[in-house]
């Protein structure tokens, strides 16, 4: 059993470390600092922490101004409010001017759980991915989150980083050598490839083990960087395994599945199954119940693999 760490906890710690190393790192929040974990930064660097109150649009605008004044702002709220409520502010005040702001959106996906569909972001990756100049990251676990936060700070430009609420298994046990735009092959295989992001990567590794018992060899490619996408790694997987199953805690419309299909249909068409929410909103329930209800478990990935292998023949 691997260690369980919530990506938002890893973010809080990484942000404090960055704050110690670089006095230009500042943090903003919109009254959710205890949940997003920016409160850890605020406690250590009160003069560099700005709580915007329940005013996400203004938070993003302030972050833009701070970046224009030479700071490296990390602005956090729940994904549904960041990509939703403050979308146009992110577009006009951050992405269009290419300002050096990191929007770290926590509580992404349906595993927010009991708060229900109003608080579950199933479309944020699609929205953010459509913005020119925007980099979109979705780490799998705690270590990758820490590495992604560090990479985002070192990169000059707007970045959207999607994190979760619940604890997730550690996938990168030996640490993570993260680079924006680069994916990671976590398991080799020859019959099909799972291309996954966020917490679905852990499910894909479990699914690959189950398939192995049935003599099916599944590769697992994790894409912590949704944009830019590691096009070479995706095409290589398609060429070498001939079938792809994408999996994301997000709608199948416009997110990882959409991005991978765009690459494959232009570059090397192979059969694809997309695992994700089938163009529906979520609902209340525990994280585990919701993953099961919406078909996002290792078992569902095994079924998707069997379907894609049928299409391959």
């Amino acid at each position: 059993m691997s260690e369980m760490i919530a990506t938002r906890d890893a973010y809080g710690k990484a942000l404090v470390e960055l704050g110690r190393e670089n006095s230009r790192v500042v943090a903003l929040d919109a009254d959710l600092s205890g949940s997003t974990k920016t409160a850890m930064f605020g406690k250590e660097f009160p003069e560099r922490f700005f709580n915007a109150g329940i005013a996400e649009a203004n938070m993003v605008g302030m972050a833009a101004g701070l970046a224009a004044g030479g700071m490296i702002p990390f602005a956090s709220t729940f994904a549904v409010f960041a990509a939703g409520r403050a979308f146009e502010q992110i577009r006009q005040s951050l992405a269009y001017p290419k300002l050096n702001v990191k929007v770290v959106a926590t509580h992404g996906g349906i595993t927010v759980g009991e708060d229900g569909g109003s608080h579950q972001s199933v479309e944020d990756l699609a929205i953010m991915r459509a913005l020119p100049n925007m980099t979109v990251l979705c780490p799998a676990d705690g270590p990758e989150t820490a590495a992604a936060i560090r990479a985002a700070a070192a990169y000059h430009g707007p970045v959207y980083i999607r994190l979760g609420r619940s604890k997730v298994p550690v996938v990168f046990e030996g640490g993570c050598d993260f680079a924006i735009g680069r994916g990671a092959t976590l398991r080799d295989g020859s019959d099909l490839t799972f291309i996954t992001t966020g917490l679905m990567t852990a499910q894909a590794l479990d699914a690959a083990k189950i398939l192995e018992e049935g003599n099916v060899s599944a590769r697992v490619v994790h894409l912590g960087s949704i944009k830019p996408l590691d096009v070479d790694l995706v095409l290589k997987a398609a060429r070498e395994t001939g079938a792809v199953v994408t999996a994301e805690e997000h709608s199948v419309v416009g997110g990882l599945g959409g991005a991978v299909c765009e690459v494959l249909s232009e570059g090397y068409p192979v059969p694809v199954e997309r695992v994700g929410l089938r163009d529906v909103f979520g609902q209340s329930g525990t994280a585990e119940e919701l993953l099961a209800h919406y078909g996002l478990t290792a078992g569902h990935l095994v079924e998707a693999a069997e379907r894609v292998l049928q299409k391959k023949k």
Partner: protein
Amino acid sequence: MLNEDAVLDLEATARQLRVEILKMLNSARSGHTGGSLSAIDVMTVLYFHQMRHDPSNPRWEDRDRFVLSKGHAAPALYACLAEAGYFSRDDLKTLRRLGSHLQGHPDMNKTPGVDVCTGSLGQGLSQAVGLAMALRLSGKSSRVYTLLGDGEVQEGQVWEAAMAAAHFKLDNLCAILDMNGLQIDGEVAKVMNVGPLGPKFLGFNWHVLEVDGHDIQAIARALDDAERTEGQPTMIIARTIKGKGVPFFEHKASYHGVPPSDEELSQALEHLGHS
């Protein structure tokens, strides 16, 4: 307090900038005339009297910052920047043309002297608040000025930013509201009444001043007052006339986003004593 000669000089500059605005809008065949003309006296005082800036070094770290929140008044900003020497006056003819560094709305990555991208109304004050925070954190004495329209304050984000500016006690921030009373669809008071504005900003704990936005001396005095104010941001409500300076454009909402025709241009230039 400006001496009489300084006032006359600034008035002459504002008149010249009106000419530039009308010529560039006529050349572009599109753009926002009324709100550029209403704002130009305030912007003349800012760029040619109040602000510390260096046209030979647009990214000078100790400069004061200007955020044109009502970004559609870009022609007024471009006229000031060209006059100050950030780029050639000839460039003004390229306004809104493909490949030009003078976009329809201000773009910090294309135009020397532009500090932020604006155009989507309601976002400028938030950015000005962030800039003021950054300057304070950096230990700089630079000030941030931002110009908003009175239609613009219908956007809720303006009030979020107003709250934040007072909460963070940003006395290095001065906002000026170009209150010309008109927006695209007509009178601000009829489309969605934003008044009374002074008491609203007072209620948000701002230092509030009201001036005639075409009175150079009054504008300069208000900006001085703002600079001396400690512990709170200042809002200068400038009463202005949309289309000011060209009689047939004045007080007309229909000229919000319409450039002068060739005939209108020659009449306007004649009126401004520039034929």
